[in-house]
């Protein structure tokens, strides 16, 4: 058993060393965000926290109008996540509880094909379209094009297929219509999956960069990710890394908090882990 114990200890050591390497960039970014201006370019670099974290965050906040950017990102990510969940539940319901209606396979393929069409493949025409709608610098442009979800439709379809068939029968016998059945029975059954999908879609939209970059110009309509670019660009000669990092920490906190809070829901909801 001696060998086993050494192996265990070795495993912990290896994991801890790798962990330190992986965590170091974030740790250093956090340290940097707390340093006063005159220590940013100190040599040797500072590896321990300074006292200026709040001060730097306030400065970053004011430099790029972060309050507004935060609101834009939060509003966009939340509304897209909810719309994706809602529309994909409706679509999945159509695919699972209405027999073989005409065009079913065609529509299913159509929704799945979105996986093959990431933004860069259609970027110029989508931009032109949004421009023709007069949607530049609007929430419509930031949200509507993302409302369909192949991932969500597949996820809920898979889930609805595992719901016992006689549940629908008894609902019908009780005189409940399809929409009542969907919202009173199927949706409550899907809570975990809704949570999981919310998490990945929120993170996905919060982190979106290219689309907001091309369809927003005014500082009022920018999102947090573009705020980082603005922070970097606002430095003429040498970068104020403490301010930039304070902004970076602000930008990464909301999705990180959501991930750590709903970690378990996420793993279970995507079938990545058995329910305990």
């Amino acid at each position, binding site marked *: 058993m001696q060998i086993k114990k050494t192996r265990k200890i070795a*495993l912990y050591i290896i994991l801890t060393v790798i962990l330190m390497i*992986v965590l170091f960039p974030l740790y250093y970014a956090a340290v940097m965000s707390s340093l006063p201006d005159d220590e940013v370019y100190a040599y040797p670099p500072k590896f321990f926290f300074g006292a200026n974290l709040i001060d730097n965050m306030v400065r970053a906040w004011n430099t790029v109008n972060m309050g507004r950017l935060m609101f834009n990102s939060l509003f966009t990510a939340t509304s897209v996540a909810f719309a994706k969940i809602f529309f994909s539940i409706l679509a999945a319901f159509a695919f699972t509880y209405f027999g073989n209606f005409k065009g079913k396979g065609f529509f299913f393929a159509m*929704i799945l094909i979105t996986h093959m069409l990431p933004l860069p493949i259609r970027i110029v025409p989508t931009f032109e379209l949004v421009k023709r709608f007069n949607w530049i610098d609007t929430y419509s442009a930031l949200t509507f094009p993302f409302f369909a979800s192949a991932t969500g439709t597949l996820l809920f379809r898979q889930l609805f*297929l595992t719901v016992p068939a006689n549940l629908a029968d008894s609902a019908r016998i009780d005189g409940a219509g399809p929409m009542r059945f969907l919202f009173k029975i199927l949706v409550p059954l899907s809570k975990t999956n809704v949570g999981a999908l919310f998490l990945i879609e929120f993170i996905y939209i919060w*982190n979106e960069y290219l689309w907001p970059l091309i369809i927003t110009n005014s500082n009022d309509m920018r999102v947090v990710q573009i705020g980082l670019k603005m922070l*970097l660009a606002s430095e003429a000669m040498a970068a104020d*890394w403490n301010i930039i990092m304070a902004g970076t920490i602000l930008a990464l906190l909301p999705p*990180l908090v959501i991930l750590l809070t709903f970690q378990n829901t996420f793993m279970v909801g995507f079938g990545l882990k058995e329910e305990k």
Partner: protein
Amino acid sequence: MRSSFPNKWLPYLLLAPSVFIVILFLIIPSIQSVYYSFYRLSLFGDKLLFVGWDNFQKLFSSSYYLNSILRTVVFAAFVVFVGLFIGMSLAVMLNQKLKGMFLYRTLFIWTYALSPAVAGTIWALIFSPSSGPFNFFLEALFGTSINWMTDSTIALLIVAVAATWKMMGYNIIFFLAGLQAIPNEMLEAASIDGAGAIRKFFRVTLPLLSPTTFFLLIMNMMYAFFEVFGLIDIMTKGGPGDATQVLVYKLYKDGFVNFNTGLASAQSVTLFLFVAVLTILQFRFTERKVFYS
């Protein structure tokens, strides 16, 4: 046969929102990309002129574009292979049933929540030539330093390291899930047959993990081709020179900085061909997977 609600028009109504969005914002613009790729904007930007295969000819005879393809392939290969190798190794270690592993897992998966732009900002600081800690350590340990603002090879390498780091959380999440789906009996049976840990890994774990590995291969590939835009825009803007100008960055520049609609669309179509090949591979593989699972 599953029970179903007898309703003629309701399913169409339910599908309408998703289908409407997909047609309007995904399918029509994609078809237009193909259309635009055969046109160019007139000098005053008011007319589209048909130019046949000109845009494609221009692309594939330009050393800039060919270099960009090569660069993207090298970059993607790094992100995919290094990323999957590290992700799989860590997941195998994290999958051991030992005390405190839950905490370790959480500490390893958080990079999933980071955006490419955030990862880019953080690594730009780490590798900063003047004040970054990386050069400090390099100087202290080996008496040397690197400058990715001037050295093209190092610039591409550093961007790849940052991109791989950001994807690590995602890879570990899915590898862990794949590992947990492997029935314990299989591993026990192998142990009884006298297989050691390494043999067990190559004979049991690796083959049974292959669907996950393949899924991640595709996802990492798509990430390396398309989603790293923010990271590159923040870190290098394609520079120094055009050392980190991967395909998606060049597409953005031609489309939205140089306003060359036709040329940008031709690049979109080229990228689509790449996605199509990946998708076909994915379908082929998932069919085979059904075979032995």
